[in-house]
């Protein structure tokens, strides 16, 4: 039923209209960022460790956020998100690459995580959490997380690619099954990752909202990124089937997650503030000292209020002049958020951005962009035989 709609727009001309500099950018980032980061890794390994972790958690957000959007697509049997599904599958399948990129953190774990070198018998908080926070569990869990993410994202993409070939209902059914089980795996694994890799820098801290908090920020950043990628795909003619509806819905979800993130982060702060238990408050007390206080304010106003007010109007979600800067802004804000989570332990006096931070972002971003483009150019740019394909573009022609 959907074949007539597809035949008009094959994947031909995938490389047309792209500036060669853009195509080389990932390699430039890998080389420049990699050299910078490698230099710092040997001269100042602690700074490198935290900078790398910040960048790693930032990009992990994008991969997990994309995985979430793919899972949601199948769970809700969604129609609108068919054209954006393929590139989200590719970004989610960057998780195995993230597994390789995790190696520096695995090597520097003893430098990054103080609990690894503390004797649990001298630290009550650590002793109480020793089942989770011991060196063996750290590595086993990390390996298990990447293994399970690799399997899940591989299956979600493989069945989707098979659907391109056969278009049979079997693919849709398999995708639904993987998504139904996958959402539980997703929730548990993301929470474990956030706790192990970010929260455990200050292992005394308690927050049951920490996983959801990381999740909310992750999906928020992913939605902004997906919007900008979709715009680029439409502008270069790679995914011509993107219409007003996809952009409107992405924009709307971005507004939703702007509010959701604020709600979660406020709730975490509010409960800790209200209860005033020292085991919890120390985390925020540290983050209200020095310039970290301003970073906190930037998160309140920049992560929430600015995007919230600018996305409120229904027509704002379709204004390129607003949405592209907002996408870049979302990256900046999420990176601020990651700094706010990772860095205060290492730089208690305040925000201390340095070249190492930039090198690590450039390096990881370059590697992921490089692999992503490889994936993207190898396969059809959007699902070809999805049963909801026609529905996803229906009615778009009249008021594109």
């Amino acid at each position, binding site marked *: 039923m959907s074949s007539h709609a597809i035949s008009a727009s094959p994947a031909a001309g995938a490389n047309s209209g792209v500036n060669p500099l853009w195509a080389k950018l990932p390699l430039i980032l890998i080389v420049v960022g990699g050299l910078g980061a490698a230099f710092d890794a040997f001269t100042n390994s602690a700074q490198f460790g935290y900078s790398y972790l910040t960048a790693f958690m930032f990009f992990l957000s994008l991969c997990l956020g994309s995985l979430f959007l793919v899972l949601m697509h199948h769970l809700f049997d969604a129609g609108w998100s068919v054209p954006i599904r393929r590139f989200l599958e590719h970004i989610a399948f960057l998780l195995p690459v993230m597994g390789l990129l995790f190696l520096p953190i695995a090597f520097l774990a003893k430098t990054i995580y103080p609990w690894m070198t503390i004797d649990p018998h001298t630290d009550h908080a650590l002793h109480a959490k020793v089942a989770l926070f011991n060196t063996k569990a750290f590595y086993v869990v990390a390996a298990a997380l990447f293994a399970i993410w690799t399997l899940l994202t591989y299956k979600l993409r493989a069945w989707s690619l098979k659907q391109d070939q056969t278009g049979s209902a079997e693919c849709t059914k398999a995708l639904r099954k993987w998504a139904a089980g996958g959402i539980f795996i997703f929730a548990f694994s993301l929470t474990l990752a956030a706790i192990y890799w970010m929260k455990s820098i200050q292992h005394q801290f308690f927050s049951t909202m920490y996983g959801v908090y990381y999740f909310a920020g992750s999906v928020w950043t992913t939605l902004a990124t997906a919007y900008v990628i979709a715009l680029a795909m439409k502008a270069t003619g790679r995914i011509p089937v993107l219409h007003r509806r996809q952009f409107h819905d992405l924009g709307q979800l971005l507004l939703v997650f702007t509010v959701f993130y604020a709600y979660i982060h406020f709730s975490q702060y509010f409960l800790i503030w209200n209860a005033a238990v020292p085991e919890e408050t120390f985390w925020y007390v540290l983050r209200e000292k020095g310039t970290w206080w301003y970073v906190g304010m930037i998160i309140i106003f920049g992560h929430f209020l600015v995007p919230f007010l600018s996305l409120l109007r229904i027509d704002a979600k379709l204004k390129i002049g607003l949405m592209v800067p907002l996408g870049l802004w979302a990256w900046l804000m999420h990176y601020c958020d990651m700094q706010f989570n990772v860095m205060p332990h290492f730089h208690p006096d305040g925000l201390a951005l340095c070249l190492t931070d930039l090198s690590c972002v450039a390096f990881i971003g370059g590697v992921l962009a490089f692999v992503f483009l490889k994936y993207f150019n190898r396969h059809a740019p959007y699902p070809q035989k999805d049963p909801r394909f026609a529905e996803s573009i229906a009615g778009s022609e*009249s008021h594109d």
Partner: protein
Amino acid sequence: MNANVSIQSYGLVAEFDTPGDAMRAASSIRDAGFRKWDVHTPFPVHGLDAAMGIKNSPVGWFTFFGGCTGYTTGMLMIWFMNGFDYKIVVGGKPLFSPFYAFPVCYELTILFAAFATLIGMCFLNRLPRLYHPLLKNRRFAAVTHDKFFVVIETADPKYSPVETRKLLETAGSRHIELIEE
């Protein structure tokens, strides 16, 4: 009854059988530049807003300012009660802080925004309205069943008894009636 009172006409009502017909008629009326007209349908028709050339409703502004009022009211109320008028220290916390005041302010934001939306909607639609000339028309009752009606008011500056009727006929209506005030 005084026979000298001239009976004012309200507008032309054109009946259509399908949403598609009504939609096409709406587009042609929009393009002809009419301003005081409306389309009545038994159920919401997607794309009708665009076909009628209706812009985004200004009711959102009522919502926005209602919300702002609610937020400010909440903050001021809690500051006045806890930080100014009757100071009690609770749990060693400051007498006033936007943090503990926020949940209440947030709920007042929603409450006042909802009220403002409802009131704004009624105001913009000139509701409540106890009488409407269309409701006298027997045939118009089918609008709640299976018929689609396009109504052009005589008060529209573009209205002309002959031309407008012709326009509606060309749009495909088989039944056109002049409704009295």
